[in-house]
């Protein structure tokens, strides 16, 4: 890793400058993470200190993968993240392509489309929960008109659709900004050349623009999956609370429930370790992508 050609020489100053960041990282990141690793291979002692914690190896992990509830949570997380990513990215791409055609009105549309980024996931959840409220919500009223009886309190599908819409809505701004930046960096000459060769607008989009956007699309896919898996805790906690019948109990929410409500520390720690593994894999994938983009 490079530094400047010439550097200051001072024995203790660099350590003093790094100290606050490193101390906080060690206390609040590295130490708890290692605790999670340790707890994940122990069976917790009882509250009275009669039975001490016992080492159980990978038993906590094995129990998890035999647990129907955990497997269900994996499935729910998969559906939820794929749904959120697809919905949010496709809507954002559509908006970005349309806004990119505009000249004078580009900035005003952008302003209207970026601010949902400011809304906390929990608030996004509450907003859509209100709109979809089975008693007074406007959308169930409309759906009633076409003969669909919406109720996210009893129907698993409805609950899943609700949290996907809420989570995707908040993320549109982010994807939109990146797609718009990507579209603006595509050389105009390529598109003109294709137009001269007689390629229609649709054909130009699918054979030139879309492939050139693929690095950004890939990057956004990773970011969106990370978002859906880890940042959407608020959406679930403020609305469905994992229900009905475990239908929206995503992994992050389950770690919280098992750790703080059911007080099953060993299992919660094992789940934390699995989640850390997922984050590390996704981060590595993301960094591989950045390295590749340099060539592009």
């Amino acid at each position, binding site marked *: 890793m490079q*530094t*400047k*050609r*010439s*550097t*200051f*020489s001072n*024995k203790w100053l*660099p*350590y003093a*400058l*790094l100290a*606050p*960041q*490193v101390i*906080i*990282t060690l*206390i*609040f990141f*590295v130490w*708890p*993470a290692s605790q*999670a690793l340790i*707890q994940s291979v122990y069976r917790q002692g009882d509250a009275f200190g009669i039975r001490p914690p016992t080492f159980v190896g990978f038993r906590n992990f094995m129990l998890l993968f035999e647990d129907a509830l955990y497997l269900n949570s994996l499935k729910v997380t998969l559906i939820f993240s794929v749904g959120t990513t697809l919905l949010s990215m496709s809507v954002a791409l559509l908006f970005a392509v349309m806004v990119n*055609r*505009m000249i004078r009105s580009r900035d005003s*549309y952008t302003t209207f489309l*970026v*601010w*949902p980024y*400011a*809304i*906390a996931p*929990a*608030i996004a959840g*509450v*907003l859509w929960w*209100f*709109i979809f*409220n089975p*008693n*007074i*919500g*406007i959308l169930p009223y409309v759906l009633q008109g076409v003969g669909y009886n919406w109720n996210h309190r009893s129907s698993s599908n409805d609950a899943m659709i609700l949290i996907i819409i809420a989570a995707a809505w908040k993320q549109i701004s982010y994807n939109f*900004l*990146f797609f718009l*930046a990507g579209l603006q960096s595509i050389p105009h000459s390529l598109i003109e050349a294709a137009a001269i060769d007689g390629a229609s*607008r649709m054909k130009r989009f699918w054979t030139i623009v879309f492939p050139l956007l693929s690095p950004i699309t890939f990057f956004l896919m990773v970011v969106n999956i990370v978002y859906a898996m*880890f940042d959407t*805790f*608020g959406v679930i906690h403020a609305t469905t*609370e994992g229900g009905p019948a475990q239908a929206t109990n995503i992994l992050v929410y389950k*770690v*919280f429930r098992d*750790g*703080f409500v059911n007080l099953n520390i060993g299992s919660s*720690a094992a789940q*934390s370790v699995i989640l*850390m593994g997922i*984050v590390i894999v996704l981060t590595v994938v993301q960094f591989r992508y950045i390295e590749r983009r340099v060539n592009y």
Partner: protein
Amino acid sequence: MVENNRWGNFFAHLVLIIGVALVVFPVYVAVIASTHPSGTFLRGVMPLLPGPNALENYRTVIFEGRSRAGTPPIGGMLWNSFIMAMAITIGKLSISIISAFAIVYFRFPFRIFFFWVIFLTLMLPVEVRIVPTFQVVANLGMLNSFAGLSIPLIASATATFLFRQFFMTVPEELMEAARVDGAGPMKFFKDILLPLSITNIAALFVIMFIYGWNQYLWPLLITTDPEYYTIVMGIQRMVTGGDSEPLWHLVMATVTLAALPPILVILFMQRLFVKGLTETEK
């Protein structure tokens, strides 16, 4: 544009206007609901036009709260959120700018090691290690305090990286000139590097403020004393407290007030926001 297509442009505007309407709709509904008396929400469908009770609803949530349901007045919660967001933002910016300075402008043993320790924080979001982090904070006696709300969230690999990238682009000559004139490292940092970094600091400030304001899980875990509730987590208490339907007019007034500060920050500093967002992710 390659060709000018009148119908195409009309169609694009149409898609965008419908799109903007859909994106704005949830917030519009919230603002409208916050202006109605409670009776409106007992039956029928939610209103789509403003009602007469705006002033009264906002006065109720800000100053009185609902003592029966255990939600304090949200004036205090807004203030707590502001303190937490500012503490997280200023804390993150200061510790990451000085550590980036150390990493770029000094050569010392274990430099790479420290760089990786900082990098680790990228991989360990609060959500995946909540139970042990909570235990650490509880053991340090930081529950129900502003220190507990902000300090554990202050370490930030992204800000450190951004400042590092930026410092690498600062011309070498500046530092050499400063050294020839006899300026020490801290003087160089304060008089040359900081003024050059102002735009980057401002852009990150916008992103970090929104991040801090929107914290949810962390305040939920470590505050049990209503004195320290923040607004975003306070809403959850209003919505899910009890089996009865929430008092939608008050909930939506709270939602509006909770969402307003970060939205204003984005609207007034859009350019800095876009810069901060697109550059922190590179």
